[in-house]
C-alpha cells in the first residue's frame, strides 16, 4: 500500500511538472503583443533584397507568466483579406505559404519576431464614389503563435493595383508603388468621405478611417518608392525576374 501511495505521489508530481512545462510554453494572447495594423508593401528599387522600411512590425510571444517564448512559430494569416495578394518570395527568415495565404517565422530568445510582409492589392479599377471596390474592412489579418490566435490586425496595402494581371516588371505593368497608384488612393478617399464602407487597404494613418490625412501619408510612401527606398519594385528583384505573386 505504501508503495502504491509512493507511486501515485510520484506520478502526480511528474504530472504537475509536465503540466507546468506545457503551460510555460503556451502562448497567452493577453500577455503577448501584436500590431493593430499590418502594412503590406514591396521591395526597394535601389536594393531589392530589402523591403520598404516602414513595413516592419514585431510580434512578441509570452506565456501566462509573462515569460517570453523562444522558438515559437508565428503565423500572419491573410485568408480573410480578400483584396491582398502575397508575394511568394521568402524574405529573410520568413516563409510564405501561398496555399494558406500566410507568412511564418520563429521568435528569438526574447520571444520576438519581426516581419515585413510583401504583397499588393487587386484594386485597379475602383468604382466612382460613393461606391467602393470590394475588399476587407478592419481586422482581416489573423496572427497566431503555435496555433493559438493572439489577435487580429487590419491589412494596409501600399500597392493598390500591383497584383492585377498582367503581371510583369517595368513601367508598363502595375507591380510596385508608383504614380498610377495615386488616382486610386484619391478615389478611395472620395469613397471614404462619401460614406462608403471602410476599407483597411487605404488606411495609411492606421486610425480606422480613410480621408485626406491618409493621402498625406500615402504621398510619403509614394515619394520613398519613387526615390528607390520604398516599395517601387513590388514583388520583383529586377527587370529580368517575373513577378512572383501568390495565386
Amino acid at each position, binding site marked *: 500500500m505504501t508503495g502504491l501511495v509512493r507511486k501515485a505521489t510520484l506520478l502526480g508530481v511528474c504530472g504537475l511538472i509536465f503540466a507546468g512545462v506545457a503551460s510555460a510554453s503556451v502562448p497567452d494572447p493577453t500577455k503577448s503583443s501584436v500590431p493593430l495594423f499590418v502594412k503590406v508593401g514591396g521591395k526597394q528599387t535601389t536594393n531589392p533584397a530589402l523591403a520598404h522600411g516602414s513595413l516592419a512590425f514585431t510580434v512578441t510571444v509570452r506565456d501566462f507568466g509573462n515569460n517570453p517564448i523562444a522558438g515559437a512559430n508565428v503565423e500572419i494569416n491573410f485568408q480573410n483579406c480578400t483584396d491582398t495578394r502575397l508575394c511568394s518570395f521568402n524574405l529573410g527568415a520568413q516563409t510564405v505559404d501561398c496555399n494558406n495565404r500566410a507568412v511564418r517565422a520563429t521568435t528569438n530568445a526574447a520571444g520576438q519576431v519581426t516581419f515585413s510582409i510583401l504583397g499588393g492589392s487587386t484594386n485597379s479599377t475602383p468604382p466612382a464614389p460613393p461606391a467602393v471596390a470590394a475588399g476587407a474592412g478592419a481586422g482581416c489579418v489573423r496572427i497566431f503563435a503555435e496555433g493559438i490566435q493572439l489577435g487580429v490586425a487590419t491589412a494596409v496595402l501600399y500597392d493598390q493595383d500591383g497584383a492585377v494581371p498582367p503581371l510583369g516588371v517595368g513601367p508598363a505593368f502595375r507591380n510596385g508603388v508608383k504614380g498610377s497608384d495615386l488616382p486610386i488612393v484619391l478615389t478611395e478617399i472620395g469613397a471614404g468621405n462619401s460614406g462608403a464602407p471602410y476599407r483597411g487597404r487605404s488606411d495609411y494613418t492606421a486610425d*480606422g478611417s480613410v480621408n485626406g490625412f491618409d493621402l*498625406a501619408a500615402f504621398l510619403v510612401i509614394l515619394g520613398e518608392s519613387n526615390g528607390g527606398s520604398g516599395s517601387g519594385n513590388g514583388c520583383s528583384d529586377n527587370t529580368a525576374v517575373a513577378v512572383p505573386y501568390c495565386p
Partner: protein
Amino acid sequence: MKKLLLICAAVMAFAVPAHAQLFMAWNACDGTAGSSTANMDFDCTPGSGFAADLYGTFGLPASTPGVVAIDGIIDLAFQGQTDVPAFWHLETGGCNSSGIGYTFARGTATTFCATTNSVLFCGSTGSGCGGGVTAYINGSQVPLGGPNRARLLFTNARPATSPVTLPGMPTRVFCFHITFITDNTPGSGGADCAGCETPTAFCWNQAVVFNNTVQAGGEGLAALIDSATPGSTGSIPNNGALISVTASKKSWGQLKSLYR
C-alpha cells in the same frame, strides 16, 4: 466666490477663438480686385468658349503648425429641378465629365489671388502636393440632400513628412481654383449635355484641416470649418439662382467620434 465666477466668465468670454471661415468667389480669390460673390451667368451658347472660375480660400482661428491635408465639400443645388441636369453630371463617366477643372495651384501671378489673402498650402505651381477632386456624387447619393443636389469632394495634401504652419485669421489660405467650361452644351459639337442654363447655388460647406498632431484615436484633426460660421461665404449663385444650399455636415463631435 462671486468674484471668481465673474473672472472665470470673463476669461471664458475672451477665450472664444477667432472664427475660422470659408471664402468662395467667382473670378478671383475673395478680397482680390475683380472677385465677386454675386450671380454669374454662364454663357451656354455653343462655341462660346466660356469658362467660369471659382476660387476658394479659408481662414484658421489661429496659427496652426503641422498641417498636411485638407478635405473639402462643395454642395450644388439646382433650382426648380427634380434631378441633376445632364450638364451638371461632372462625375467620371458622366455626360459632362470633361466640363470641370480643379487645381490646388494658386499660380505664381497674384492677379487673381493677392498674396495678402491667399497664403499657400501647396507651392504656387502645386509642387509638393497631391490631390484633386476625389468624388462627385449626385442626387440621392448626397446625404440628406435631395434629387436635385450634387456634391463635390476634394482633398489637397502634402507628404506627412513635409507639413507647413498656416497662419490664423485675418490671413487667408489659398485652397482651390475650379473651372467650369461650357464646351459640352447641346449643339456645341461635344457631348450634348442639357442644363447649362439651370440656376444653380454653390456652397463650400465644409473644410477639415488635418495636422500631424496625433490626437485621441490617432487622427490629426486641426480644424473643422463650415459655411455656417459667421463671415463665411454662403451660397453663391449662377444663372440667377435664388435658392441656397443647406446640406448635412459632420459636426466636430461627429468627426471626433469617428476616430475614437
